[in-house]
């Protein structure tokens, strides 16, 4: 069997840089999958020798497979049918069973034979040239690409990421004749848009990359990315700066070039008085520039940009870029200087004109509610109530500054800078920044007490408000991101170890909403707490906690997240103990027994009725443990408590091995149930262990 090199290149108008890599990987994965499907069960072996290489530039997606077999090998397929003895009647005529078998395989009776006493259909499957199958495989892979939005162009109904312009498809030097996405396959590709305008003939897949290189196209994505990194570092070295090369920006820039050339530009030092986050954002988001700092992390007045041309006059390209960034930075500078002229405090009035949500009133009203709640929370966590109140009142005022109007991402951060400029307390300023933390999964949490109080209050107010007006998140609809807000609250409480009760917080917050009718308040509060506890599940699912551990604790619905978390960790630890499995089983057993009895309160234990050694032992252990456990429960030492309870394994096993719970004497039976009840109650002070798998 011969092998060939396969190449497919789809030429397009400029593709979206951020999704380029994803598209490229999916394209080749789709082709390989298609090949595997065609090759059937031997695919792994048949493809073992081939190597796959992806290429992706703004104007092309290509895949080269070297050492690919050129055909699906011939094979023999054998299907066993009904036993021979039921295939013919006494007269030798074919039976229904035989005719049915032939029909199912679409063959004539003459083509069937016999093997091992059964009718058999053996078929020789001829080798099939792979070339004929490639167009279908490629087309299917393209149709399955993860494209958020497909587009149409011209007067046709074909859809792709961007307009499709050419197609190369080769088996060695042979063009695979086909038409895909409206273009005819050939062996001609195109080089760099400006450096190389003549078509390029690819005689065989092996020369693809080198020929493109000569036409000013580095087709391989990672080689291009590496080249950019090297160039950026070189440029930074020339100006004695440290370049900051973030992966997402690097990938995006790599997706914007076929022939990267790094250039360094400068901007006026005076702009450095603007908070550097604003400058970095301007450079990165709008211009895709890499920024540089000195050794201390201070922003330098330079940027490094990656052009896509070996310009005949580099200075023009640099001057052009400098011309672009200047007004952007000037804008930032203008906003910053202008905003500073008006204090945050005097901006409060303006918040009266901004509707937060139609039924929940203005942002001003929200700030007032936030202030009351934040102050209360600050009291609960030994923070400064006055600072919390102050921070909450000022927290949203940066929304009416020009800088935040322009760069929404800077909300909070600008509030921080402006608050300091106004001479506000440092912690108040810090809290204004921290109110939006965490912004995403894994983001940092507020560090100051004031920030913690404000971050919690702001989210709780939105949460209770939206539930209060009957707009909780449903399905994929969560316009106020209440789910994320909830996880934020939970993370803050648990990870910053705040001893706060959701029930209390939610009730406080609900009480402040005028939009919620008095008679609905209790109901809304309950709904919100329930919703929040359910979100804890999502929180734990993201971590290493097993879901049944969460369920065992959730069964008790403890409404203090920190307490919840301590229980969850205790149960996780318990599960690592040797006694865990048998105790879980025992808890299940006890739970089953008790469930059938519908006992509503703890029955008294009469020690005089304890006769069997095992039950006496268990009773002794329980009594002894009881005394030791109480202080542990008091101090929420659930881990210690469960470890102690694990010592019950032997007495419990003995009990079940030797004692008959449902004794004939009803008094004895009742007494034994009481013993089990007590046992179960001790575990239930921590979690419902019977729910563990």
């Amino acid at each position, binding site marked *: 069997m011969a092998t060939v090199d396969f190449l497919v290149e789809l030429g397009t108008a400029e593709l979206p840089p951020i999704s380029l890599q994803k598209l490229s990987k999916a394209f080749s994965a789709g082709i390989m999958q298609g090949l595997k499907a065609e090759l059937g069960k031997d695919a792994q072996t048949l493809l073992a020798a081939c190597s796959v290489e992806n290429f992706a530039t703004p104007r092309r997606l290509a895949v080269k497979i070297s050492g690919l077999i050129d055909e699906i090998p011939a094979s023999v397929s054998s299907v066993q049918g009904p036993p021979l003895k039921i295939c013919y009647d006494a007269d030798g005529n074919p039976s229904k069973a035989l005719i049915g078998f032939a029909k199912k395989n679409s063959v004539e009776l003459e083509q069937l034979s016999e093997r091992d006493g059964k009718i058999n259909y053996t078929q020789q499957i001829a080798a099939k040239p792979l070339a004929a199958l490639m167009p279908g495989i490629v087309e299917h892979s393209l149709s399955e690409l993860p494209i958020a939005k497909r*587009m149409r162009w011209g007067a046709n109904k074909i859809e792709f990421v961007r307009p499709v312009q050419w197609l190369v498809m080769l088996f060695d030097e042979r063009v695979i004749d086909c038409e895909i996405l409206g273009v005819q396959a050939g062996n001609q590709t195109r080089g760099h848009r400006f450096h190389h305008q003549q078509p390029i003939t690819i005689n065989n897949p092996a020369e693809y990359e080198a020929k493109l290189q000569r036409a000013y196209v580095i087709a391989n994505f990672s080689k291009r990315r590496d080249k950019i990194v090297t160039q950026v570092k070189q440029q930074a070295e020339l100006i004695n700066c440290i370049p900051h090369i973030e992966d997402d920006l690097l990938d995006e820039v790599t997706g914007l070039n076929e022939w990267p050339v790094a250039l360094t530009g400068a901007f006026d030092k005076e702009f450095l008085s603007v908070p550097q986050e604003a400058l970095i954002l301007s450079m990165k988001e709008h211009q895709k520039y890499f920024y540089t700092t000195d050794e201390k992390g201070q922003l330098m007045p330079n940027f490094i940009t990656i052009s896509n041309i070996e310009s005949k006059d580099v200075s023009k390209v640099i001057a052009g870029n400098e011309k672009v960034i200047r*007004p952007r930075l000037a804008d930032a500078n203008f906003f910053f200087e202008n905003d500073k002229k008006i204090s945050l405090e005097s901006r409060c009035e303006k918040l009266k004109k901004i509707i937060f949500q139609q039924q929940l009133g203005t942002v001003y009203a929200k700030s007032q509610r936030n202030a009351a709640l934040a102050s209360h929370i600050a009291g609960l966590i030994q923070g400064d109530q006055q600072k919390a109140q102050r921070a909450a009142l000022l927290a949203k005022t940066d929304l009416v500054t020009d800088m935040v109007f322009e760069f929404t991402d800077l909300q909070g951060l600008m509030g921080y800078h402006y608050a300091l400029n106004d001479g506000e307390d440092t912690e108040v300023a810090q809290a204004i920044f921290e109110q939006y933390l965490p912004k995403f999964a894994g983001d940092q949490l507020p560090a100051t007490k004031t920030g913690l109080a404000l971050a919690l209050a702001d989210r709780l107010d939105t949460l209770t408000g939206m539930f209060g007006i009957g707009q909780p998140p449903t399905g994929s609809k969560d316009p106020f991101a209440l789910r994320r807000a909830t996880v934020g609250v939970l993370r803050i409480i648990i990870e910053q170890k705040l001893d706060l009760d959701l029930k209390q917080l939610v009730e406080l917050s609900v009480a402040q909403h005028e939009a919620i009718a008095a008679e609905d308040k209790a109901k809304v509060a309950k709904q919100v707490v329930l919703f929040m506890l359910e979100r804890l599940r999502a929180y734990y699912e993201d971590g290493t906690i097993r879901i049944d551990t969460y369920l065992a604790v959730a069964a008790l619905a403890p409404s203090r997240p920190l307490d919840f978390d301590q229980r969850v960790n205790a149960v996780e630890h318990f599960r690592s103990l040797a006694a865990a499995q048998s105790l879980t089983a025992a808890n299940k057993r006890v739970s089953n027994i008790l469930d059938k009895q519908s006992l509503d309160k703890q029955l008294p234990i009469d020690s005089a009725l304890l006769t069997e050694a095992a039950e006496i032992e268990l009773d002794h252990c329980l009594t002894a443990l009881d005394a030791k456990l109480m202080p542990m429960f008091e101090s929420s030492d659930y881990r210690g408590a469960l470890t102690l309870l694990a010592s019950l394994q032997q007495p419990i096993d003995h009990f079940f091995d030797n004692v008959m719970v449902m004794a004939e004497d009803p008094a004895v039976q009742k007494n034994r149930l009481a013993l089990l009840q007590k046992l179960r109650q001790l575990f239930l002070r921590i979690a419902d262990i019977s729910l563990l798998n």
Partner: protein
Amino acid sequence: MTATPAPKGATFQDLILALQTYWSKHGCVVIQPLDMEVGAGTFHPATFLRAIGPESWKAAYVQPSRRPTDGRYGENPNRLQHYYQFQTVLKPSPDNIQELYLGSLEALGVDPLVHDIRFVEDNWESPTLGAWGLGWEVWLDGMEVSQFTYFQQVGGLECYPVTGELTYGLERLAMYIQDVDSVYDLIWATNSDGTSITYGDVFHQNEVEQSTYNFEHADVDHLFSVFDFHERECNKLLAANLPLPAYEQTLKASHTFNLLDARKAISVTERQRFILRVRTLTRGVAEAYLNSRAKLGFPLAEEGIRLEALAALEESK
């Protein structure tokens, strides 16, 4: 790409003339600006309405555009509340549309082997127009000088054939070509005695006064009622089967919304509601316009597409 480059140091008006000449040579109807306040060339009926339905269309024009929130009292060298766009629409979008566009840059004297020209992904969406499209911003040495969009939907209707829209930011392009740092220093025209008239001479006072009006004097309460009026009027005209006048009412409502926005009179949530109101109007207009053209038998459509579109409309009835 054989056009004669514009003379070096082209004036602002030379630039417009060069683009008009270029696109005229490539078969565009050169029309004049819409005489109403709009935020962009896209709002001109020659783009918005012509993008609807099966009819072919090629046009180029300058459109004065107003974006009240962008005003800077004439103090920012790059931001204007009133500026010019040069708009080219080609429907159906030809396969060589990018090359045609690059040809127009060369006609303006931009050498693609000196400058870094890039097509950078830009997904355009206009919630008020019920429209979206995919395409690019065109970067010239990092400066966005044009927007390039393949319309996919307009007024809530699928576009077929697809219109390719090229929008040049004339001031930016001119600043680049004339190598000035402030828009107000642009040479608009050169007198016969060699002196010149600048963009500042023509428009600086306007920027100062209009910014002041937009941000400080526009009567918010009245504007809210004006918005309501145009909305009512549009609906009335739609009921009377007059899509073109109805569309103008939509434009007025849209500009009123922009003024209210500049006065920061509309909150984030309220904003959504206003956008929805305008979108409802533009959808109504788009449908009415499509029907009115269908009644005429889509006279400008290519025959095959014309029949296909008429059949599709018949079927949906």
